[in-house]
């Protein structure tokens, strides 16, 4: 007997007025996978997750989760999924244990079983000590862990994690990654993970889809995707007071240019990392003054850049500047 694919989406579209947040997404997630959905802020990740978890109705297209249609069979979908959404929404006045119990009640788990599973989950996420404290006193990392525990209380088939480590310190982040890996390994739970961090997708996901502007722009395993980009990038820094033109002219011979930081020039080395010696010699011969040379092996950021012409990370800084401006008036 074949197990249905845990997530199948065909032509998912979601419009808000005239804005198309999701513009035609097709996906298939296989049983037991950790599937990563990677993209910058505003790409449509959360909107897609909300459609898959029955919190939003698709404007067009269909989706089946755990074999059930998300619109027509929403109830069955809800029984089979665990959801840990952005910002780990919790009630600060309740204790960790009370929240777990509430979640269990929502899933129709009887009291005895709820207590048993609750205790085990608290142990797993390391919150046994804090279980009877109000979650208002928990740190960000603790809240995410509780959120994870809550999403697992009914032993779901598919787990949806929406930006699970955004805003967490590195230690908490690694701890959460370990949890997710362990869960996937030991219970075979399929995990659908959205993230804006390429590191996270790289580390956790077996397969990823990169989304930008509501459409999937690349799909495959991290290794496959990076291999397609192929050649490494060489970045030459000439410093802020020097003209980049001489360096540009030299590097042009070695490969196609790619976007670089101010004061630097970068190209994709057509002949691979081995060319680096030739590059240095060529720069020397042209008497180009160089501050530094860096060799970057392809990353998911490069995959993104190749598919969209933009960089994945570094777009975050702009947001906080805007909020500064509105406070002044």
């Amino acid at each position, binding site marked *: 007997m074949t197990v249905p694919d845990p997530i199948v989406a065909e032509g998912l579209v979601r419009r808000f007025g005239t804005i198309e947040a999701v513009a035609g997404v097709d996906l298939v997630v296989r049983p037991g996978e950790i599937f990563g959905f990677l993209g910058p802020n505003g790409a449509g990740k959360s909107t897609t997750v909300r459609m898959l978890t029955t919190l939003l109705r698709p404007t067009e297209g269909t989706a089946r989760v755990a074999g059930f249609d998300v619109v027509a069979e929403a109830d069955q979908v809800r029984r089979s999924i665990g959801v840990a959404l952005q910002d780990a929404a919790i009630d600060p006045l309740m204790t960790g244990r*009370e929240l777990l119990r509430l979640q269990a*009640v*929502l899933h*129709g788990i009887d009291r005895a079983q709820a207590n048993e599973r609750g205790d085990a989950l608290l142990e797993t996420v390391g919150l046994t000590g804090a279980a009877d404290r109000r979650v208002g006193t928990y740190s960000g990392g603790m809240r995410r862990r509780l959120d994870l525990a809550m999403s697992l209380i009914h032993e779901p088939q598919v787990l949806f994690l929406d930006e699970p480590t955004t805003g967490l310190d590195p230690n908490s982040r690694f701890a959460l990654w370990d949890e997710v890996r362990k869960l996937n390994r030991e219970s075979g739970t399929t995990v659908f993970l959205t993230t804006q961090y390429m590191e996270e997708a790289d580390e956790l996901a077996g397969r990823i889809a990169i989304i930008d502007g509501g459409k999937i722009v690349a799909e495959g395993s991290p290794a496959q995707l990076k291999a397609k980009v192929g050649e490494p990038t060489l970045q030459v820094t000439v410093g802020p007071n020097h003209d980049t033109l001489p360096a540009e002219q030299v590097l042009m011979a070695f490969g196609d240019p790619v976007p670089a930081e101010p004061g630097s020039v970068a190209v994709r080395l057509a002949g691979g990392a081995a060319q680096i010696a030739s590059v240095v010699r060529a720069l020397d011969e042209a008497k180009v003054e160089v501050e530094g040379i860096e060799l970057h092996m392809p990353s998911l950021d490069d995959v993104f850049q190749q598919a969209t012409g933009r960089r994945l990370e570094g777009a975050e800084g702009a947001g906080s500047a805007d909020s500064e401006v509105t406070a002044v008036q």
Partner: protein
Amino acid sequence: MSSTAVTWGLAKRSLLLIPRMPSTFFPSLIMPIFLTISFAGAFSGIVNLPGFPAETALSWFIPMTTIQGAAFAGVTTGMGMARDFESGFYDRFLASPASRSSLIAGPLVASAARALLPFTLLMVITIVTGTDVPGGLLGILSLAIAAVGVGLVAGAWSVGIALRSKTLEAVPLIQSGMFLGFFLSTAQMPIELLTGWLHAVARVNPMTNILALGRQGYLGDVTWATTWPGLVSLAGMALALTAFAYAGMRKVIP
């Protein structure tokens, strides 16, 4: 089966949060007492109007502030729901298999139960001030029914609004709706002594019957003639506003 568990679980959470949030707890304790003293104190002279149905201002106002307190307590449930929506906590309920009806029933049970707080407080005031209850135990029961019923009705109103607005911006609407529904009636003066537009509005407002139901024990004997219109009005309002709440739930997933 698990629907009852969900209903009870949600009601429990709602009631649990009362003592944990002192900013709403103390007002709900103090307001009914304060309003009773203020109304009965400031307007004590009105009992001297010819044809006024009560002997003392307290007999007239205690049932009123009980029911008003119940309405106030009832709407806090919807306000809590609005807060849950804003924080994203409500997504948990929506993404769970809990039946949509139990998601409404829970808060409604809490609203009705919350009405017992002002009721209890005002029973204490009745005793402490030595206010007569000629209707006896039946009179107290009538007031309890009116209070719990209004708590439920107010709760359904607030839940219906919260489900549609999903933000705390709804709160002024919830409060003003409740305020107008309650006060455009015989809350302050008996129907015989009302004039003009307010008389007309009070005559059609079901709250007038409900207030009569709750007050009768304090003004005289409990009679079926005063009781049945109150019960019908309570049932009518409860049905209408619960339907309002359900309609909101049906539209809650965009």
